[in-house]
């Protein structure tokens, strides 16, 4: 009976956490669209959306409502099941990754230790990899089911791009894993809290990882599957209403989660820089430190979101051969070299 009671409260706690994280990521994704438009405008000496609400803050709500009220069109020649499955998969895979990210240190609620991580899986990074590479199925299935040549080209492009960049991404992470010796994201964060952020030890690995993250999120300069001017929006060309909305939204959720992963792996996660959390917890309490830690993680995420947007409005899109060239001929050898050097250094230090 006692076991059951604990399990119940654990279930409730996880359910609340899942609900909180999902709604939080959706909210952040909503306002990233706003941020994207604002920052793009500022970089082009414009003002951006400023009519809906103060400073245009209600603009994302207006956009979302517009998408909901639009007519839903499913092309006659499309495969209905796959057509609906595409955007759903894109959104689901975008959200799934958030499960293994530690959003903050453990907090105390009513005498219980509550972990701010949905699942502390010991293969955390592998899980992230698996789910992220599933993200391309949304694009592929959607593109295929649309029964449209542009969409199909986009789907093929998306698939080949993600496969190419996943290799370099994995290789760059192997070097990181040699240092940490653990696949669990929570352990990696805790190591960084005491031993310094991984960016110090793995600058090249971080760079490669960041480029690959850009490619996996289909963000400029790697937005070949969308390619407005060659493929007419590519894989979501035939989509309308909220199905289109889900595709667009999934991109922003992806950006948010990827920023969280980068911040967790290389920038100490919820670590507050130059502060000893254990000392701070004794003076202001565990929960306050957790809130500060979450704020630290969130500001790191915000920086990466800004970086995503900043790069998008600076760099033009790669040509397809340049994309493949960069992925296979530059990033993979670099990642391999990085891995070898790290291995040698680790061995040499441990001898």
């Amino acid at each position, binding site marked *: 009976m006692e076991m059951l009671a604990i399990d119940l409260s654990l279930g409730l706690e996880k359910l609340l956490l899942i609900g909180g994280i999902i709604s939080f990521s959706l909210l952040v994704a909503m306002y990233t669209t706003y941020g994207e438009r604002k920052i793009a405008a*500022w970089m082009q*000496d414009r003002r951006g959306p400023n009519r809906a609400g103060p400073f245009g803050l209600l603009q994302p709500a207006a956009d979302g409502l517009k998408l909901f009220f639009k007519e839903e069109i499913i092309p006659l020649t499309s495969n209905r099941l796959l057509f609906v499955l595409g955007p759903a998969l894109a959104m689901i895979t975008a959200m799934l990754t958030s499960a293994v990210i530690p959003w903050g240190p453990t907090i105390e609620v009513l005498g219980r230790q509550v972990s701010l991580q949905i699942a502390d899986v010991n293969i955390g990074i592998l899980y992230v990899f698996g789910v992220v590479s599933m993200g391309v199925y949304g694009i592929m299935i959607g593109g295929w089911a649309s029964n449209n040549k542009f969409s199909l080209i986009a789907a093929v492009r998306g698939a080949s791009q993600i496969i190419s960049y996943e290799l370099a991404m994995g290789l760059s992470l192997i070097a990181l894993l040699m240092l940490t010796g653990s696949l669990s994201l929570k352990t990696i964060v805790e190591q960084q809290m005491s031993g310094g952020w991984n960016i110090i030890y793995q600058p090249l690995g971080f760079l490669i990882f960041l480029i690959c993250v850009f490619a996996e999120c289909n963000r400029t300069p790697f937005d070949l599957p969308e390619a407005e001017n060659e493929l007419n929006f590519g894989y979501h060309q035939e989509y309308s209403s909220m199905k289109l909305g889900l595709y667009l939204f999934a991109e922003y959720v992806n950006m948010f989660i990827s920023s969280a992963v980068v911040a967790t792996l290389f920038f100490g996660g919820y670590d507050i820089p130059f502060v000893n959390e254990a000392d701070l917890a004794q003076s202001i309490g565990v929960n306050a430190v957790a809130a500060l830690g979450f704020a630290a993680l969130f500001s790191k995420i915000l920086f990466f979101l800004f970086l995503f947007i900043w790069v998008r*409005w600076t760099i033009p899109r790669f040509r397809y051969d340049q994309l493949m060239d960069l992925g296979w001929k530059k990033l993979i050898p670099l990642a391999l070299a990085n891995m070898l050097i790290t291995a040698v250094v680790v061995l040499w230090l441990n001898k």
Partner: protein
Amino acid sequence: MATLTNRAKVLEQKPMSFMERLYFPAILKGMGITLKHMFQKKATIHYPEEKRPFSPVFRGLHVLNRDEEGRENCTACGLCAVACPAEAITMEAAERLPGEENLYREEKYAAKYEINMLRCIFCGLCEEACPKDAIYMSETFAPSNFTRKGFIYAKDELLIPNPLTDKENYEKAKGQREQQLKNK
């Protein structure tokens, strides 16, 4: 091949240097430029709330003027219609009756005065032709309309508000222009 002019430039196609091939310095430079632009003065203004001042020589919609006592200046002499290269102005004259001295400044006035804003080319020749300072071009431009008929402005749309009864709108219609010209 002989060139026609000596302005032709030979294009030098050197292979890219190592720094150029790295691509990253160039990206960082570009990102610096976009970041700099974020903090620069914006080219756009908040339009309906904020308006750019009109130039003192701006020629907008026509206004039929009144004098300080609110009497119409126009005597329907027809010089503006003659001067108009687009033939946008038509008018009909009428004689002032006893008791209308507070409405019209002189013995003759325009009973009907129409300007077709679709024909008008806003050249300002009517303004120059007018001997009575009765027509001038304001600081507003023609708003959109659904029909062609809506662009034929009759006298009630052209007349400036009466300065005795509607001082505020009179000043507004007068605009900043005279002030600006005086300051020059």
